[in-house]
């Protein structure tokens, strides 16, 4: 069973808890044991609490009459989770602490949450609660680089019964969007996950069902064109004069804002002249009452966020609206950009958010460069295939596919230039082949456009699985035979925020997590949640560069070699 697990730090992810699973098989049930590192221990997004006899006010489709929380964090060292022998299948299971443990759970409630007052009261009185049930989202609790569909017998929400709970802390910062509550419990019971007991959700390993997206064959009438992706990254390039002020990493003032004078003195003494290191525990726990302001960024007020001063951005008109007239249903009224080529109605709110963050600033951004450097090294070779072409200038019915390859891109001796016209074999490695996808499109005056698809998942390798809603692609032919273009859609901004919730990343790439959190929330322009009335999605555009290439199916023998090669990596 070819699961590989790596424990390493990658820029952009919380350094304290990182895991990557490379599934060669889909997971259909659980087994459990212990693992040396934690699963994802906190997330930004909804979780729910039920207190027997005291229903909450949440009226959404699921967890009705529960108490809705905005973010949660299991602080401290967590239970280790692993299934299967070393080097084989791993599965994190729930992120909560081991059954029978005592511990703490920190949740945040929005300042407009109707259950806020009750929690404040519980906190003020230190009322003992015999038990409560906490439900956390499987989807959001997954490790950031976890891949593959949710196994069928895994619940949408992990549920834990917390016993003898006391709200031992509820610090509130003026102007913050959320208030944190520290739930101290004496025992925890897992309600829908019991891998070792008789009601186990035991794992059954089955081959993954890979999408049947094979390279298209050209015919006398239908052409096929393949392109190797040489760059894919957020289209958030901004010129120097468009960012009079760049975002910056937090400083000592930010780190110490909610500390008492005695604490400040002690921290200053510990860190001396070098100051507090971004990414350190005391840097992250800079919220009121020592709450983690990186994983629970809503507990501090918005420190502000520099945004580019430009009306020009790359991208696609995702909502079919250029800002004039009525805003389409499900879309929040937002600023529409004009593309450099004059197209209007460009939806790229992520440009507003990331345009002035040095590490994420399009092609200049170090974070984007590192992931594309790994792409250049062949870690996640991806091709765009355009097939069914009758007429390269205008064709109302074509197919556009994203297909992964096992082969490395070829570059010149200096490693700077990608060599065109190489042939690439498809990969059967499920971590990539699972995300091969073909969509319908057309060619208009030489420009390739795809129809919007409800959801498109793209494995960007170093980054978490990209889940684009209402996704579209657009490619323009270039004189050198390549195409350049965009992949655009709406991303869940809370998941995006989670991937950046790292004190180390704040320091490395130059931003403040709370500022980013509020900027994402403020600029979210799509994916209206009718239950909350909030917009869960932000329009994002990924810029794509290519060189002409060819795609060929891998022979079975090659696929086996590839599998063996990956095992031994």
């Amino acid at each position, binding site marked *: 069973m070819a699961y590989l697990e790596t424990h390493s730090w990658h820029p952009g992810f919380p350094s304290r808890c990182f895991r990557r699973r490379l599934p060669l098989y889909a997971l259909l049930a659980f087994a459990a044991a212990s693992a040396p590192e934690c699963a994802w221990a906190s997330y930004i997004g909804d979780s729910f609490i039920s207190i027997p006899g005291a229903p909450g006010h949440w009226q959404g489709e699921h967890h009705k009459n529960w108490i809705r929380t905005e973010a949660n964090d299991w602080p401290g060292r967590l239970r280790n989770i692993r299934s299967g022998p070393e080097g084989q299948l791993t599965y994190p299971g729930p992120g909560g602490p081991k059954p029978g443990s005592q511990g703490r759970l920190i949740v945040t409630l929005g300042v407009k949450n109707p259950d806020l007052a009750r929690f404040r009261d519980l906190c003020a009185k230190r009322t003992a609660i015999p038990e409560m049930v906490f439900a956390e989202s499987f989807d959001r609790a997954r490790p950031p680089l976890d891949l593959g569909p949710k196994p069928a017998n895994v619940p949408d929400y992990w549920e834990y019964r917390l016993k003898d709970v006391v709200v031992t802390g509820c610090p509130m910062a003026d102007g913050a969007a959320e208030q944190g509550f520290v739930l101290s419990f004496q025992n925890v019971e897992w309600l829908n996950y019991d891998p070792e007991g008789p009601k186990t959700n035991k794992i059954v390993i089955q081959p993954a069902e890979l999408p049947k997206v094979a390279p298209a064959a050209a015919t006398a009438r239908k052409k096929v064109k393949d392109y190797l992706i040489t760059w894919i990254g957020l289209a958030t390039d901004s010129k120097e004069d468009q960012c009079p002020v760049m975002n910056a990493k937090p400083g000592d003032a930010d780190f110490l804002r909610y500390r008492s004078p005695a604490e400040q003195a002690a921290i200053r003494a510990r860190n001396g002249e070098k100051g507090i290191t971004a990414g350190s525990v005391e840097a992250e726990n800079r919220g009121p009452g020592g709450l983690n302001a990186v994983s629970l960024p809503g507990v501090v007020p918005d420190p502000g966020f520099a945004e580019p001063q430009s009306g020009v951005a790359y991208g696609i008109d995702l909502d079919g609206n250029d800002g004039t007239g009525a805003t389409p249903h499900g879309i929040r009224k937002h600023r529409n950009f004009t593309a450099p080529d004059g197209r209007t109605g460009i939806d790229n709110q992520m440009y507003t958010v990331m345009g002035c963050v040095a590490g994420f600033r399009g092609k200049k951004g170090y974070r984007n460069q590192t992931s594309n450097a790994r792409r250049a090294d062949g870690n996640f070779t991806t091709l765009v295939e355009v097939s069914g072409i009758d007429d390269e200038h205008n064709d109302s019915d074509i197919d556009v596919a994203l297909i992964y390859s096992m082969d490395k891109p070829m*570059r010149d001796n200096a490693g700077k230039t990608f060599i065109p016209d190489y*042939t690439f074999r498809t990969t059967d490695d499920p971590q990539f082949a699972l995300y091969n996808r073909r969509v319908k499109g057309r060619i208009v005056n030489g420009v390739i456009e795809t129809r919007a698809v409800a959801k498109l998942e793209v494995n960007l390798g170093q980054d978490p699985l990209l889940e684009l809603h209402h996704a579209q692609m657009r490619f323009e032919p270039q004189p050198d035979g390549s195409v350049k273009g965009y992949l655009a859609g709406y991303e869940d901004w809370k998941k995006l925020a989670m991937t950046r919730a790292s004190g180390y990343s704040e320091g490395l790439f130059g931003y403040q997590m709370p500022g980013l959190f509020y900027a994402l929330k403020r600029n979210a322009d799509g994916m209206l949640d009718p239950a909350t009335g909030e917009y869960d999605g932000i329009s994002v555009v990924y810029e794509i560069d290519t060189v002409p290439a060819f795609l*060929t199916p891998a022979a079975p023998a*090659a696929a086996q070699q590839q599998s063996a090669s990956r095992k031994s990596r």
Partner: protein
Amino acid sequence: MSSISGKLFSRNRPQKLVLLACAAAAAFSLTTGGPGVVARDVKAEAEPVSPGGPATFRRLSEEQYKHSIAQIFGDDITVPGRFEPDVREDGLLAIGASKVIVTPAGLEQYAVRAKEIAAEVLGEKRRAATVGCAPQSDVVTFDEACASQFLGKYGRLLYRRPLTDREMASQLGLAQRATKMSGSFYKGLEAGLASLLVSPSFVFRLETTEADPENAGARRLDAYSLASRVSFLLWDGPPDEDLLNAAASGALRTPTGLKTQIDRLMASPKLEAGVRAFFADMFGYDQFNGLTKDSALYPIFNPQLRNDAEEQSMRTIVDHLLTRNEDYRDLFVTKKTFLTRSLAALYGVKADQRAFGGWMPYSFPADDPHGGLLTLPAFLMLDPSHEGRSSPTIRGKMIRENFLCQPVPNPPANVNFDLVQDVNDPVHKTARERLTAHQENPVCAGCHAITDPMGLSLENYNPVGKYRTHENGEKIDASGTFDGTDYSNAVQLMSLLRESPSTTSCVVQRVYEYGVGRKVAPGEQKWLEYVDQRFATEGYRFPALLRRIATSPAFQAVAPENLASNSK
């Protein structure tokens, strides 16, 4: 477009004519009529008697050394150290091999190599199988019989003849002394073997002659020297036991015995190595060593592509000439070749599974601008002197010299090449324009008139062999005239080269020169013309050409003077 008659380069004419032609070419009418290097009477006629030429004394090439070690001791023996460079003379390294010496540093390398090979051959793992006899007593006592058996066997294989009594006595004495000093019989043998390996009798192919009993007053190679000529021609390696036995028994001296051995050698898989070695020499593939191009200008170029290009042409040659036994002339127009993933990218075609780590047979479409050896990247990139541009002059010179056996002199020392080399010249955008301007200098015009027309016809292929239609935005004019016939592109030129008598007479001449290790002697012309005719009547099949030359009395004939005295 000017061209020059093949007659100018006839092997019957002294090369100095070419020099004269170059010097005077500005005023020289280069088109003197139709092709025709050799008078062609294809009617069968008796093979003319050849007086032969001098015997030769040739240093083994690196490949020949390695083939020798592999054949005698096994192909897993490591051959360490650096070899001294070969020297090309009269178009062939095989001729230059008799013009080289071994420097003190080179001798040191031979000595180190000999010691390491001997140590590996007589190491504990191998010695039982290699030595073939067990010492009479314990291994510290010198067993002369066993040592004689060992040194006799391998001395004969390495020297390609039996050791003389004196040589044997010397080797035994050395082995005995080494045994005594080291306290090991096998160390003694090791010293003896190392001595054989460093001996000039191994490192050099010294041809010896004897009186030809069938031609009074004439001489011929002795049987062992003949065995070496034959085996190095066909295998690029030394005679094996069978061939040496045929030489010892006198069988090689009989037409039947010689034919039997030639048939055996040609049926061996080692024939491919021989054919590869010949064409690598004829086409100047030693220049691939260290060949590089400016990767800023030609990012696709890298050592892998270079190696693939070389191997592609060799595979194409071997497949065409040996596997399919096709007409040699069709090498210039064949659409069949082999691709790796890198080469497929160079051509801009899709590779299949076989091209990943291997080779994929490929046929260019009929209307594709590729076809034939000279449109393969091996030829097109093989210009060590120009990393950043193509040189029509060098390409034309290579065709003249390597494929048509028409030597072109080197340029005068005081020529200003600035104009030719400025690929960014806004006025002269294409190589043709730059060279035309360059030829306004009459000193240059003569030779360029010989080389450039054909080279300019290959300008549609950039310095790494990728097809292009424009240079600096200007459409490339690939037209020209060859032997009085106009053509419009390289593919058409290839067809004309296919039909040129110089193309086939050149390979005949080169095979012979490669085999005998010297330039054709004046008295051998008639015989060579005969072989040329037979090559034609046999459908220009290369194996038939090899067989004819190897079995011919001319191949063993030696002119009276017994020393190497090649050209110059």
